[in-house]
């Protein structure tokens, strides 16, 4: 827009389309016109409210199963598959999330800011995927497991136990493997976090669940089972079976 063309009408059209815009002659016009200046300030304030409203809280993301592609180390392409939807939330995820959230507020008072953030993410994520927590003796397909752990450059030895769920998920801004194994008292969630270092084990105990964020090498593994689940054996299996490739 040419500065000579700027009048109240053109200024108001322009400022309503781009309140933060810096167009030719705009500032000069506003400086000399109280009404247009007031409209500009009003629209900029409106934009701040719009921006706050648009910034919806974002739920944890669960990545879909990604097919192997030619030229990416695979021998054939598999059919694209949508992640199944589960309409009914399982009791465990919600109960575990609530119980853990209540406990962590107390427990992490002794921990650092980063660890609180990590634990919060773990709890929030557990709540996001309640459908993963089912009692079953059906192992996750090898192709799925391989895709999830290989894409994150993690080695998982067979000694870990029966793996019944495997997905790639985002925790703390990083894509990590989310596995579920079967414990003595029900499903046990494992979040393998090769880049999340913790100095010492962080217990996550609650009324319904029993968990820990365990240091493993330079990373950590979150292990969360039911209240009566004995984690010691699972911790040993995790330490023996999970290796970071990097």
């Amino acid at each position, binding site marked *: 827009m040419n500065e000579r063309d700027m009048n109240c009408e053109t200024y108001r059209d322009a400022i309503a389309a*781009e309140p933060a815009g810096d167009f030719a002659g705009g500032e000069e016009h506003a400086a000399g016109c109280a009404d247009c200046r007031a409209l500009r300030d009003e629209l900029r304030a409106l934009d701040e409210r719009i921006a706050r409203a648009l910034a919806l809280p974002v739920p944890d993301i669960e990545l*879909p199963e990604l097919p192997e592609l030619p030229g990416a180390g695979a021998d054939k392409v598999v059919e694209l598959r949508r992640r199944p939807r589960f309409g009914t939330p399982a009791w465990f995820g919600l109960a575990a999330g609530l119980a853990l959230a209540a406990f962590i507020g107390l427990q992490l008072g002794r921990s650092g800011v980063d660890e609180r953030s990590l634990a919060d993410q773990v709890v929030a994520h557990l709540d996001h995927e309640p459908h993963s927590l089912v009692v079953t003796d059906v192992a996750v397909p090898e192709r799925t497991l391989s895709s999830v752990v290989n894409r994150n450059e993690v080695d998982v030895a067979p000694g870990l136990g029966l793996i019944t769920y495997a997905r790639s998920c985002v925790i703390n801004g990083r894509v990590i493997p989310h596995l579920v194994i079967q414990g003595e008292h029900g499903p046990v969630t494992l979040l393998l976090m090769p880049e999340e270092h913790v100095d010492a084990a962080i217990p996550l105990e609650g009324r319904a669940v029993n968990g820990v964020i365990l240091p493993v090498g330079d990373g950590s593994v979150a292990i969360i089972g039911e209240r009566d689940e004995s984690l010691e054996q699972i911790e040993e299996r995790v330490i023996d079976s999970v290796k970071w490739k990097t």
Partner: protein
Amino acid sequence: MTEQSAGKARRRRFDRLVATLHADLWRYTAWLSRDPQVAEEVVQETLLRAWKSLDSLREDAAAKPWLLTIARREHARYYERKRLETVDVDELTPAQAAMIADGHDTDTDDMRAAIFGLADEYREPLVLQVLMGYSAKEIAGLMDLKPGAVLTRLHRARLQLKARFDRDLGN
């Protein structure tokens, strides 16, 4: 580079993009569809498409508009498949109601409801400009419009929101 290491590099690249952009992607599709459940499905499809065509993305700096373009197409496809009816603002699902009002801030909830009520043609450019920081020219490219048409829609969107809140205040 071996085929295997190329595959791993490709996956690392994809993971980086997802970790960086998933919030923008989800918010864009949530406002596009006005339904968090639809947004989740569209995001899943978008990521699958993006994974398949990742090699067509030459520079990661261009990943955001690339991903949003895929999301926009997937959103359109979703409605073609499902043949869903237009959202009735007076008959929201619990998920839609929760999207508008999380109860933390009444003013923000009111503004979300007002944006929710905007016509698609006004809401989308507003989201792209205010939330994504896009210029009118960039929005025009994504929406296949002329920049002048984008500016008109942005102008009308704001005036509608302003009029609503002026009315509420009895101005």
